[in-house]
């Protein structure tokens, strides 16, 4: 399984930096968007009922 330490040797600082950016910006952004879409779908359903 891929680990953070496996990634490091590729381009040490850049790779870890990109990974951290990915984990703390991209992933939360995706989750935020998912929550937004769920809430919108739930609201629509409640309105329909």
């Amino acid at each position: 399984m891929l680990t953070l330490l496996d990634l490091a040797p590729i381009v040490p600082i850049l790779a870890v930096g990109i990974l951290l950016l990915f984990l703390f910006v991209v992933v939360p952004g995706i989750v935020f968007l998912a929550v937004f879409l769920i809430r919108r779908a739930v609201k629509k359903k409640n309105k329909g009922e």
Partner: protein
Amino acid sequence: MRRLTLAVNCFSHFAVDFCCFYILFAADKPADGVEFLVYNTLAFALQFIVGAFCDAHRRFPASIVGVFLVAVALVLPHRTFSICTAALGNAVFHIGGGIDSLTDALGKMAPVGIFVSTGALGVSLGTLFAGSVYSTWLVPAVLLIISGVLLAVFAMPHKETEPPVAFDFASPLPMGAVIVAALASICIRSFAGFAAPAEWKTGAMLIFLASLAACLGKALGGVLADRFGPRAVGIPALIMSSVLLCIDTPVTALAGLLFFNMTMAINLSAIYSVLPENPGLSFGLTTLALYIGTLPMLFAKNGIPVLVVAALIVLSAALTYISSKKGAPRLKTGGNNAHSA
């Protein structure tokens, strides 16, 4: 006709996953860690966006577009572009096939379980084929052409003349609680699946058998849950798998994998039961949960103790219990969900 559409979607699911993993593992060097991360992000984490789009545009032929994108990826010369295109194609196809399997299911869980099952075989056979001496791009190309033709003939999105039969697999809890519990269950199971001991998985035959067990588990889970109810199937299956997966021998682990995969369709059906207007979003959310579950493994250098893995699977079972319905579902046939099939 519904069975034929499901069969075509199942074959195409196998073909798409076969081709994607052929692309990842073929060529002179297999995909590295970063390429895998990018592939997984595009293929799994973003499916819910495609799903939301397809929910709003029901006549968008997602399955065919997905197959087309994977076919483009197969001929793209630049490796990174090829992997990204394949991942996007994979995401779009899954949503198309998932929507078909949910909306044409007549309120039953079995079709979506059967649809998701064939992907496991595609992944393992695509990986093994890419590394074999017989590896040639002709095989994935032919598979994709056959899929494209079959989808165009049998699985084009049709104008809805009747609303789909409502799914009735969610617990009576509030919608938000059902969605959160089901997604958390998938997320924890995804992490536990990666963290479970896998030293037994040596050699091509065992890799293939593992995917076969996963395939059978996913398909059986849906079929049995329709008959006996999601809780009666999902909870015992997960608890048995928590023991079997932690015994690191091929026979027990294969049986554990079979039981472990039975709950995929159960969690998805619970979400779709509370979001009946959003089959694409429901399907995409489950793959996002799967993806998030794999992320902690980026930091797990020394493996996870088997007892922790077993405890996590039991926790996943508890969440499945919370999110799913007691007893076998009753088909709702009144009001907006009337169906005259």
